[in-house]
């Protein structure tokens, strides 16, 4: 083959739409880049990452280490700079020291002095409160100086690792100080973390705050539970294979269970968690995103818009149970033994009022009104202080319509299942019936297991690494847009209203699998939750 750099033969796009989309983004062609050159990773362009809320746990345990790991993998550009903003009386060196310790303790890749030295040259700190005009002016000066000193080219990403209540102040400050306006030189991006509001109205309000200052494509909503790797794994399983799609419908699937169980309690998050609860915390965003990925139709292309379109379509087809009293369940953990230790109940946790009605466990039965899924219930559950930490999606298949074996032979045969394990130990399990070795004919459930080889390795990027890199590169595909957030609230709001109207959450002992009402909800449908 004699294809030169300009004419990549053999690359005739299978789907012209995908390539066309890329062309628009690409700008001038870089002669050193070649889509066939799979070794060269995409590296972020010169930029400054400004972080608000640097004193939080998340910044220390996840974000700072992720920045270092990206640098260590050579994915950050020369001159990359990292600016912290907080109400601390720190100099640049103090902040660098804080970052250094966070990196040393939590980074996943080996610590290298050279990488750290180069990274630390670009670390700055600006001290002040969010309402302090002077501090934001100082911040504006600081990043402009970085442009001059380190050639960051006027590209700024703002990471708001702060409670949503403070968004309006910070966003307004960014606008007032002129930081949000690129004036045509460089880009501006803003990263916000879930929760994206606490109901439809507040989500819209939040969006309005951002909308006035940043264009929609500059807003990156991060749901750290849903790493890009997971999303891509699910899409690859469904749409890169021939053997699953034919059975991925009501003809074969009996029901779907989506579970996110945590073994921890609320820990130090009382202030955030009280009044939010399990449903708003994870079902509205994380579990509904998983449902969308499982239930959606094949996107026309693997790009942001096609994917979002399919997710939005399926989310708008989600229906709540007719009777919310029997189709939902919620609970609060009470004192008990979890994982070999005695733990407090939710109402005794520090910072939680004794009459709190916030749920720590929520379960829902949803329907998806499409030709593919009509009549197949999707059961979602999320809870804290459950026996172990586990997130999974289980497709439970219907029983074989006829078994040519005698009833005693298949006594121990359950329903076939395909389980997508998301964490810990990401992988796929298939459960099916197999003959037990021996002279008697006996069929019993066995598991076939696949674990992503990636998951063993230090070199598979952590969710935050990929998210941060996507933000710095400006690659939006898998971040939910406002429309998906609103659809999520549309589904959840009636449930929350119903719960708020009368019931109190049922109690369940810490370390158990959830309240009896959740078991009863399944039992009414003649089904049972998978064991945690």
């Amino acid at each position, binding site marked *: 083959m004699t294809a030169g750099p300009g004419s990549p033969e053999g690359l005739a796009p299978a789907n012209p739409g995908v390539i066309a989309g890329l062309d628009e983004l690409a700008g001038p062609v870089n002669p050193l880049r070649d889509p066939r050159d799979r070794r060269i990773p995409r590296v972020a362009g010169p930029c400054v990452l400004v972080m608000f809320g640097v004193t939080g746990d998340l910044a220390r345990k996840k974000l700072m280490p992720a920045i270092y790991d990206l640098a260590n993998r050579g994915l950050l550009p*020369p*001159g990359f700079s990292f600016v912290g903003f907080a109400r601390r009386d720190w100099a640049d060196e103090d902040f660098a020291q804080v970052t250094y310790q966070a990196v040393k303790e939590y980074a996943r890749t080996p610590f290298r002095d050279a990488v750290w030295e*180069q990274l630390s040259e670009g670390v700055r700190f600006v001290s002040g409160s969010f309402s302090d005009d002077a501090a934001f002016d100082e911040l504006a000066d600081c990043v402009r100086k970085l442009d001059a000193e380190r050639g960051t080219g006027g590209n700024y990403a703002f990471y708001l690792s702060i409670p949503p209540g403070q968004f309006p102040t910070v966003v307004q400050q960014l606008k007032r100080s002129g930081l949000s306006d690129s004036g045509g030189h460089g880009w501006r991006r803003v990263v916000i973390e879930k929760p994206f509001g606490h109901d439809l109205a507040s989500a819209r309000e939040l969006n309005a705050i951002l909308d006035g200052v940043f264009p929609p494509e500059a807003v990156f909503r991060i749901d750290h539970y849903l790493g890009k790797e997971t999303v891509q794994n699910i899409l690859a399983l469904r749409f890169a294979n021939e053997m699953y799609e034919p059975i991925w419908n009501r003809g074969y699937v009996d029901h779907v269970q989506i579970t996110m169980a945590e073994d921890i309690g609320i820990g130090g998050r009382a202030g955030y968690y009280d009044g939010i609860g399990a449903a708003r915390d994870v079902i509205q965003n994380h579990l509904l995103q998983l449902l969308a990925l499982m239930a959606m139709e094949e996107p026309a292309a693997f790009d942001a818009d096609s994917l979002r379109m399919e997710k939005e379509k399926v989310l708008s087809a989600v229906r709540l149970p007719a009777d919310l009293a029997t189709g939902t369940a919620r609970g609060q953990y009470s004192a008990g033994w979890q994982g070999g230790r005695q733990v407090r109940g939710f109402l005794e946790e520090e910072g939680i009022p004794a009459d709190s009605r916030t749920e720590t466990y929520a379960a829902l039965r949803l329907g998806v009104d499409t030709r593919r899924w009509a009549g197949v219930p999707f059961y979602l559950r999320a809870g804290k202080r459950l026996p172990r930490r586990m997130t999974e999606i289980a497709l439970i298949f219907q029983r074989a319509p006829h078994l040519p074996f005698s009833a005693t032979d298949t006594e121990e045969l359950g329903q076939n299942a395909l389980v997508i394990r998301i964490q810990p130990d990401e992988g796929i399990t298939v459960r099916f019936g197999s003959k037990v070795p021996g002279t008697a004919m006996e069929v019993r459930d066995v598991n076939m297991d696949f674990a992503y080889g990636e998951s063993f390795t230090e070199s598979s990027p952590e969710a935050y690494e990929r998210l941060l890199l996507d933000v710095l590169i400006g690659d939006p595909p898998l971040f939910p847009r406002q429309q998906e957030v609103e659809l999520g609230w549309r589904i959840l709001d009636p449930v929350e209203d119903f719960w708020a109207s009368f019931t109190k959450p049922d109690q369940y002992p810490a370390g158990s699998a959830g309240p009896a009402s959740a078991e009863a909800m399944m039992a009414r449908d003649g089904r049972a939750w998978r064991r945690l």
Partner: protein
Amino acid sequence: MTIDLTDTTTGAIHEALTQARRRMGGPASGMVLTLIIVTDESAQYDAVRAANQAGREHPSRVLAVITRRPKNESRLDAEIRVGENGPGETILLRMYGPLGQHADSVAAPLLAPDVPVVTWWPDDAPPAPRSDPLGTVAQRRVTDAAASDTPLETLLTLAKAYQPGDTDLSWTRSTPWRSLLAATLDQPYPELLSGEVLAEPDNPTADLIAAWLGHRLGIEVRRGESGGPGVTEVGFETPDGKVAISRPDGRTATLSWPGRPERRVALHRRDTAELIAEELRRLEPDEVYAETLRALAARH
């Protein structure tokens, strides 16, 4: 667990593997490939260790083919290691006597079913990897020109025999440099008049980078010599002055650009395990490498 089998056959090795797996509860079920390492007794330790480290990312069956004492009687000794250094299985195959000439007859029955095969020569590369008995079974054949006494000649020999699926670790070593160079040209840049790559005299990676740049940019890229370590600088002459990335210490690179502040970026040299892990990540033919080899051959 380690199992030693003396004067054995592939059938016996299979049986021992199955038993070991059963005893350990099947730890090696998710293997993604078979990696054949063609090596000798003195180099096997480092190579197997690198492969096991890479195996954490790519759980694999590692077959180390070690030829010993060609004049002895034919004999096969096997050392099986399961569940010791992470996932996967490692089998050291020591072949004595004339058997060493027929290593493929031992390796073939031991390839893990269904998954791709990669053959790696950490030391001396065969002149035509694709025609080598242990190369024909593999989708991907990894050599290392830098390990030979005359790296550039070795690379040119390999270029003549190139077949899709061939690759060389001296090309793998160029990835961080190439990625930094590509990132540098992601922003608007002045016209590039000519270029130069500086490195130790016997550094095939520098030859490949120079050939790659020359081919992609359509300008003359010289290959200059420096004291190392490894590649120390890649620079371009432009009408505005010199744009250069230099790495004198093998750890941190400095990007200098006329009229802009100097910027530093970590660019460390990677160990063999990382190189092998990168090689195993993609098993399709590397067309860019093929073009670069051709461009290199045209220069010499």
